[in-house]
């Protein structure tokens, strides 16, 4: 693997990875006196699957929340597609083309699966309030076009059978999939997945892994994900950032990370002096 050139690199299975899409520079995030993230830098490249791993409380979710704008870091810079990003609200980040899922699933429970996924298209709908109110041709055409995209994604994730079901009635594994569908509906440039496989059984995990790989492969979507299951992470990701106690302790390909002593210590535990 000819890694880290500015033009990108080619993975073992022959996928072309592009230049840097997102760069985190010296990010520090504090909650009062508690440091959740300390001076972390890493990048995410066009087309890659980038994993953030680490033990519980390592600051992985906080990092994802910084990328998606839910947290604003006290120090450091976020660069997206070659430009420094000013402090933004989460909805503005979403409008920039960064979609996400949540660790504890945040779906619109009262709405149907279809409506949930349709909300993912909101950033692509341009017609104004009055147009919508009087349902002029443009708004209608827009609705139809967006509906087509959504149906494609619903087919892709194999949730056709539950399209009209209220989300509250679905089992956990399917909810996770609907949440992924909603994020995909935005046709994001960068997709953030916060523990997409947490709480799933082996079969559901295999399904989800397959979907993640397929999304990356078919839509060319750049994906950053947080995951606990080391086996899954190593299979899925192109490069891995390892965090522990809010600090970065490793960064590289799965093989590099696996043989990194600091990472082994963090995961297996080591006697502290």
């Amino acid at each position, binding site marked *: 693997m000819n890694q880290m050139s500015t033009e990108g690199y080619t993975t073992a299975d022959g996928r072309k990875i592009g230049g840097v899409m997102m760069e985190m520079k010296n990010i520090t995030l504090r909650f009062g006196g508690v440091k959740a993230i300390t001076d972390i830098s890493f990048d995410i490249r066009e087309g890659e699957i980038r994993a953030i791993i680490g033990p519980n409380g390592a600051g992985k979710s906080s990092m994802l929340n910084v990328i*998606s704008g*839910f947290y604003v870091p006290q120090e450091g810079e976020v660069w997206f597609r070659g430009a420094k990003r000013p402090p933004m*609200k*989460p*909805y*503005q980040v*979403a*409008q920039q083309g960064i*979609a*996400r899922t*949540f660790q504890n699933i*945040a*779906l*619109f*429970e*009262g*709405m149907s699966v279809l*409506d949930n996924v*349709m*909300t*993912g298209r*909101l*950033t692509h*709908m341009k*017609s104004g*309030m009055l147009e*919508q*109110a009087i*349902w002029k041709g443009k*708004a209608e055409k*827009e*609705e139809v076009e967006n509906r087509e995209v959504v149906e494609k994604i619903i087919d892709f994730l194999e949730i056709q059978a539950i399209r009209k079901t*209220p989300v*509250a*009635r679905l089992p956990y594994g399917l909810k996770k999939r609907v949440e992924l569908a*909603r*994020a995909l509906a*935005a046709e994001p440039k960068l997709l953030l997945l916060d523990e997409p496989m947490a709480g799933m059984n082996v079969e559901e995990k295999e399904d989800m892994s397959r979907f993640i790989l397929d999304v990356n492969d078919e839509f060319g979507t750049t994906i950053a994900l947080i995951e606990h299951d080391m086996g899954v992470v190593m299979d899925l990701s192109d490069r891995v950032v390892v965090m522990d106690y809010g600090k970065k302790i490793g960064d590289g390909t799965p093989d590099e990370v696996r043989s990194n002593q600091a990472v082994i210590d963090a995961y297996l535990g080591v006697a502290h002096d």
Partner: protein
Amino acid sequence: MPDQLLFAIEVTLNGLMAGVLYALVALGFVLIYKASGIFNYAQGVMALFSAATLVGIMNGDVPFSHLINAILGTDIHHFGWHVPAILAILLTMGVMIFLAWAVNRFVFKHLVNQEPIILFMATIGLAYFLEGLSDMMWGGDIKKLDVGLPQGINETIDEVTFNLFGYGFFIDNLDIVAAVVAVILVIALTLYSQYSKQGRALRAVADDHQAALSVGISLNYIWILVWSIAGFVALVAGIMWGAKSGVQFSLSLIALKALPVLMLGGFTSIPGAIVGGLIIGVGEKLFEFTLGGMMGGATENWFAYVLALVFLVFRPQGLFGEKIIERV
């Protein structure tokens, strides 16, 4: 047909018309509650405020004239012009949109993630603030509101029913207009919230703030939108009630009648607000008509609340409220 039955039908019809007006106020509650989880106690006062503003603008009154005169020692009350009804309604709508922005900017923006009871208390404060503001801007006297809506008995219905049954029904033209307007408003709002982009965003915000943010919805925008729509509904209700019984403080008390309407219809259902309004309107008129005499009269004062209480016991989510699904 026996006279008693004909009279009962007439009472029912009048009840339906009154119910439509209850429904109009209840509708404003439902809209805000659905989108922000706030039970807006101030909805009734918003109707009063909008109606007073409409009258003030139409008459060319100077807002805050008492205050201005007291401070500057002047004696101005009128600009000396009269604004046509349509233009005045548009201007009033502008004021309501500004109010929506101000309410969000200065009150609810600072109360994000607070307990529902705190939000509720804030709306009580808002109600009294608005009431005071209304008095301060336009004076507290009873005002006549005439935007050119037809008033008085509908001659056609009177004539037709007289020829058919030998007894002419008394239906007020204004009630008919109110009913038609309410029906149109409800259909439009239901379609808007179910099928438009903003409607979907609105329901999304109502359901989960975090998730709504993650799909690119600005919460502020939606809240201002929803308070504006509630302001619009308040204006319509204010015009109807104001034309019927004058613009006065008691108008804001109608809001209390909307409470049992909401308990019946469910706090989250637009059609529920309508059906609930109709049931209460007809129910209280018929009850007064049939049993009122035996119970010492004036049953209209309490009938709605007792009916709502009975409903709460058997169907807490209301007739059309969202089902409470709990996975175990």
